[in-house]
């Protein structure tokens, strides 16, 4: 079962009816129980996976309680923290990275039977965050194990996050929510919007990307650039689509989860991009890896040395770049730990550091050429530059391996250039089995995404709120259009195997 399957929505529907029919104070108990059933089905009915997930949640709960009781015994408290981190992070790394290194070292398969729980990357980070918060501030310790169980295993978050902090969502999960027609409508609308992005747009772009990536010997030159830029658009539609469905399902219970995206393609540089893309992962790394590293005594004394050697301005930056390197490396291991993922994440680190190092030079060039930086065209240039740099990283992310990705790039640069393919109507009209109608659908989908972004930017509120302010005919017309677009143009049903969400299983 996946969050795109009919059985999922049937179960969500039953769970919702029970949730809203029960007395207010017991609704979270209904959610906890239905959560267990849906999480079990999302884990392909694996009791082992479900048991491991609940085990990891119980460990985090117990760690929080221990930190509270050991507040005066600092050394023992630190020992418990290290044991907790090793256990939780160890299981995560084992499940994500071990298979790769086991194969690399030709060790006999001891992990092939191990099936990690769905969403282990997301809930493990949430649990580690909770443990660290409790270690630093004992007032945050949850006393009720069942409430904590709901937080750790909340099923909408298992597919692709978000990564949450207990202090932000813990109370909301168990607090009394009054039924609101508007909230439920908002939830349904958001699910529909997510389905549109995934089934209508991402699946179609995926066909183009898969065709090119599937035959790198044939598709060289400009085909590669089309696949790379196309993949970033596919990834955006796919990942934000899955998040929209997750947020929508959660809103049906009256529970709002922290947002993961904020118009990432508006970003003017890579640092800003990561504040707008997968926001909860970036915030987690900042709060629980980057800040604590920088604040250690070792980094502070390192900072003193670099300031002595390179002056105040650069001396302060060097330890920050080192801490960023560690953070991005950890992000690479979180994604899978293979050379491909490490390359993808360290690519961002490299350009962020280069950008900071060359900033004074860029400023001088811009000033000497008298380039205006307070206008739309400059912002557009910066956003396109960011998009291109992210695409180059995403292109490797999509490849089977780092070697395969780099050889594709080689094919793009060294092979004979073929820009005329852009105008080859006969080829594109049947490319990968797509029809001209499919191309128009992709174009229309991208235009709708752009329109939604413009509404967000100009009105400062969500598209759903903007639609709610419109007249009845327009409002309903818009939602019915989206519904029929998903039903008619969506890639699903018998004979079509909808691909999993790209970030499912991370």
């Amino acid at each position: 079962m996946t969050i795109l399957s009919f059985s999922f929505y049937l179960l969500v529907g039953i769970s919702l009816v029970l949730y809203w029919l029960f007395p207010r104070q017991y609704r979270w108990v209904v959610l906890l129980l239905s959560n267990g059933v849906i999480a079990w089905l999302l884990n392909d009915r694996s009791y082992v996976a479900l048991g491991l997930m609940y085990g990891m949640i119980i460990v985090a709960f117990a760690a929080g309680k221990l930190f509270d009781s050991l507040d005066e015994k600092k050394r023992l408290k630190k020992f418990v923290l290290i044991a907790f981190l090793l256990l939780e992070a160890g299981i995560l790394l084992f499940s994500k990275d071990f298979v790769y290194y086991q194969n690399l070292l030709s060790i006999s398969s001891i992990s092939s039977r191990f099936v990690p729980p769905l969403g282990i990357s997301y809930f493990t980070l949430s649990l580690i965050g909770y443990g660290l918060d409790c270690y630093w501030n004992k007032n945050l310790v949850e006393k009720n194990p069942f409430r904590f169980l709901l937080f750790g295993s909340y099923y909408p978050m298992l597919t692709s996050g978000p990564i949450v902090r207990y202090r932000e969502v813990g109370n909301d999960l168990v607090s009394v929510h009054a039924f609101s027609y508007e909230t439920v409508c908002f939830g349904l609308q958001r699910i529909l919007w997510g389905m549109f992005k995934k089934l209508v747009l991402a699946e179609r772009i995926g066909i183009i990307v898969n065709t090119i990536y599937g035959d790198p010997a044939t598709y060289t030159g400009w085909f590669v650039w089309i696949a790379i830029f196309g993949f970033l658009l596919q990834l955006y539609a796919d990942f934000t689509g899955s998040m929209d469905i997750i947020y929508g399902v959660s809103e049906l219970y009256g529970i709002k989860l922290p947002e993961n995206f904020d118009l990432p393609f508006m970003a003017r540089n890579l640092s800003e991009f990561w504040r707008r893309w997968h926001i909860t992962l970036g915030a987690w790394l900042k709060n629980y890896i980057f800040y604590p590293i920088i604040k250690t005594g070792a980094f502070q004394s390192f900072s003193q040395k670099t300031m002595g050697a390179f002056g105040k301005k650069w001396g302060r930056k060097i330890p920050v770049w080192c801490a960023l390197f560690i953070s991005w490396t950890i992000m690479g291991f979180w994604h899978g730990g293979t050379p491909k993922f490490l390359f993808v994440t360290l690519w961002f680190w490299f350009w962020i550091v280069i950008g900071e190092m060359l900033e004074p030079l860029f400023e001088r060039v811009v000033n000497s050429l008298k380039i205006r930086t307070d206008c739309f065209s400059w912002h557009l240039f910066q956003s396109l530059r960011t998009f291109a740099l992210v695409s180059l990283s995403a292109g490797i992310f999509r490849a089977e391996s780092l070697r395969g990705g780099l050889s594709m790039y080689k094919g793009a640069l060294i092979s004979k250039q073929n820009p005329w393919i852009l105008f080859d109507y006969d080829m594109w009209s049947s490319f990968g089995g797509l029809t001209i109608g499919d191309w128009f659908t992709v174009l229309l989908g991208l235009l709708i995404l752009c329109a939604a972004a413009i509404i967000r930017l100009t009105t400062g509120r969500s598209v759903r709120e903007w639609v709610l302010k419109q007249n009845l005919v327009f409002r309903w017309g818009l939602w019915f259009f989206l519904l029929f677009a998903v039903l008619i143009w969506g890639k699903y049903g018998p004979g079509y195997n909808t691909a999993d969400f790209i970030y499912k299983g991370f």
Partner: protein
Amino acid sequence: MTREEVNKTMDEVFQDVFDDEGIHVTESTTAKDIADWDSMMHVTLCVAIERKFGIKFNMDQVNTMKNVGEMMDIVLSQVS
């Protein structure tokens, strides 16, 4: 140490960290008000404040402080 004295010393720390003598912070000053105050500079700033006042922020405070007023609250709770 009074709140005014802490505020004045905070000014000096901010001016030193951001290398800008024109900076004057108030209780409501946030990262949005100072151009270079991003997540990378945030910890540098926290450590500089710790050194100046001889105090220690715990990581939860570093992660959650929202403005200069909250920083001053923590400083005052430890120096007085």
